[in-house]
């Protein structure tokens, strides 16, 4: 098992807490930011697993544009989950 694979496993474990937080929290803005963080870590994991094509897409779409779309949608509706 190479060093990169061990780092990839650690980072993959790092995705789980923000994912659970994003589901559980009532604050939708925090949830969107947590999902963005998870996406960013996933991009690094893809890079370490030697899939740079996917990593570029994940970083640009997952961590960038999806987060912006979520924030604009929250701005149009409501921030707190009822």
């Amino acid at each position, binding site marked *: 098992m190479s060093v990169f694979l061990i780092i990839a496993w650690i980072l993959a474990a790092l995705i789980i807490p923000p994912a659970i937080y994003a589901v559980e929290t009532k604050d939708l803005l925090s949830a969107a930011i947590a999902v963005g963080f998870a996406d960013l870590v996933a991009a690094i994991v893809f890079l370490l697993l030697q899939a740079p*094509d996917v990593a570029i897409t994940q970083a640009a*779409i997952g961590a*960038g544009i999806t987060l912006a779309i979520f924030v*604009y949608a929250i701005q*149009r509706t409501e921030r707190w989950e009822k």
Partner: protein
Amino acid sequence: MRKAIAIIISVAVFVILAYFFVTSSAPINYTTGGDYVNPINDHQANQSVPQQYLNDSRKDTGSQNVVTAIVVEYRGFDTLGEVTVLFTAATGLAILLGEYKRRIEKAVEPNFVTQVATVIILPFIVIVGAYIFIHGHLTPGGGFPGGAIIASGFLLLLLVETNRGLPEKKLSITESLAGMSYALIGLLGLVLANEFLENYLPTGIFGTVFSAGIIPLIYIAIGFKVGSELGGILHNIKGVHEE
């Protein structure tokens, strides 16, 4: 109660997935052919599909990036479907939100640092995006990531221009032209090479920008299309300031 059931189900799903991952991550010997036997070519039945792509993509497509060779050449029709899905999503969003202009009570003045930094950094973002989709057949990346990076430049522009949106009409014209040129390149393949999306241009010198036949042309079209489409989505979902 519901929470406990949810936790139990998620743990069970995780365990099952982890089991499959661990059992399937045993080293696969590709040289003897994995489980993937290509049923179409019987004379190559012992050769696995991934190995065949790695061996033949240079000869077939002239593309240095094998992922691009698969996405645009071998599975070109899939990519056309993907572009169509994105187009449908953007059109649906435009229909739903285009009419309804959001009224902003008080326009927020953008940060001075953001304003200045955007002017400096925006050209570089667009150039990086264009570089990624022009060099899609040489380096990792391609039309989708390049277009997404250009769209993130549009996002920066939207953050600064709080009162105005993006030039929506120009974006939709760019998008339509790019989509049409993709389909036309494919149809030309039907005329010139008897197959839809088949390569009919010379593959050129391996590893240079002007190589791999129609792959760079298709990726340039996809890059323009995805960039303008995602820009339009961002524009529509943000809304326009109305007094």
